[in-house]
């Protein structure tokens, strides 16, 4: 009954936009950068859907319209890459090896630990692309037969982790080079890590933004090779 009221595209779009704006407002007011609108917005929407017992599929009608823009946004990652292309060319080998090494480490640690703890195959596969940014990780997860929704939630948690531990790791390991700091954050914690990189400095921020699309592309190939070997 009540569900008929929400069975239109406008409802999902409206709910998503409003929840996002509320999330941004909360982040601004509390001054807590980690309280991303992705987290608060998601909690708000899930809360409302459960509270009013609204069918997820009704929300999805509008939700799909909003998430359509992920693909063009991913194409737009070409811009931070292009803007930093000089600096990248100068350090190409360093950057490529750094990104690839970080991603392989993440994949190996994840696969081994999932095996040790007996995590199911479907969750393990969904975990593989968790280092890269949501828009790209989502597509990769879909491509390798994972559950994109699981991948996405793990991606946001991984980003948050990188934001929290990144600077401490650099301090302990005495990593002061801004290129290394930026690449390490962008590779392993995508957009959220880039927020931290921008706090650390301009070069850090630029390198981190550029690392996001590069890590995305390299991850596609790594995961593809991995799936070819094991399946």
């Amino acid at each position, binding site marked *: 009954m009540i569900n008929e009221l929400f069975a239109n595209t406008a409802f*999902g779009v409206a709910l*998503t936009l409003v929840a*996002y704006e509320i999330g941004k407002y909360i982040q601004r007011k509390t001054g807590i950068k980690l309280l*991303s*609108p*992705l987290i608060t*917005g*998601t909690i708000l*929407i*899930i809360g409302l859907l459960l509270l009013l017992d609204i069918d997820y599929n009704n*929300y*999805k009608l509008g*939700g*799909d319209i*909003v*998430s*359509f*823009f*992920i693909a*063009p*946004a*991913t*194409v*737009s*990652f*070409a*811009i931070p890459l*292009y803007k930093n*292309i000089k600096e990248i060319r100068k*350090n190409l*080998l*360093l950057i490529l090896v*750094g990104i690839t*090494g*970080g991603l392989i480490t*993440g994949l190996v*640690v994840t696969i081994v*630990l*999932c095996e040790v*703890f*007996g995590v*199911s195959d479907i*969750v393990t596969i969904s975990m593989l692309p*968790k280092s890269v940014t*949501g*828009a790209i990780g989502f*597509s990769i997860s879909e491509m390798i037969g994972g*559950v994109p929704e699981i991948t*996405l*939630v*793990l991606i946001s948690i*991984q980003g948050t*982790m990188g934001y929290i531990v990144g600077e401490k790791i650099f301090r302990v*390991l005495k990593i002061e*080079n801004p290129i290394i700091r930026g*690449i*390490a954050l962008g590779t*392993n914690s995508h*957009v959220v890590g880039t927020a931290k990189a921008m706090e650390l400095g301009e070069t850090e921020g630029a390198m981190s933004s550029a690392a996001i699309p590069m890590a995305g592309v390299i991850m596609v190939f790594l995961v*593809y090779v991995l799936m070819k070997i094991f399946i």
Partner: protein
Amino acid sequence: MIKQFSIIISILAISYMIEVGLNLPIPASIIGMILLVILLTTRIIKLEQVEKISDMLLKDITLFIIPLSIGIIDKIHLFEGKFLIAILILIISTIVSIIMTGLIMKLMLATNIGGKNDK
């Protein structure tokens, strides 16, 4: 803005054709990103022609992702009660990966195989 968006979305449409036509194991959005970098570096497309729309799309990229993460309510059972273990694995792998990325690059610079960086 519509003009700028039309460029991005046309590149994406072509990328879907490339993905399906050549049967590539690469998501169309990534193909589109690579295409756009090539078009920018060859100056077929100028930065100003796509800069505004790209800034806008990237600034609010989390908004577009929200509807997808809502889908987790339908999938959470797939963790078979091992959600917290998955998070633990994720935390460990994130820390180790950042350490490894940093150390690999630091080692490369120290041994001078990382390029012409003066640092």
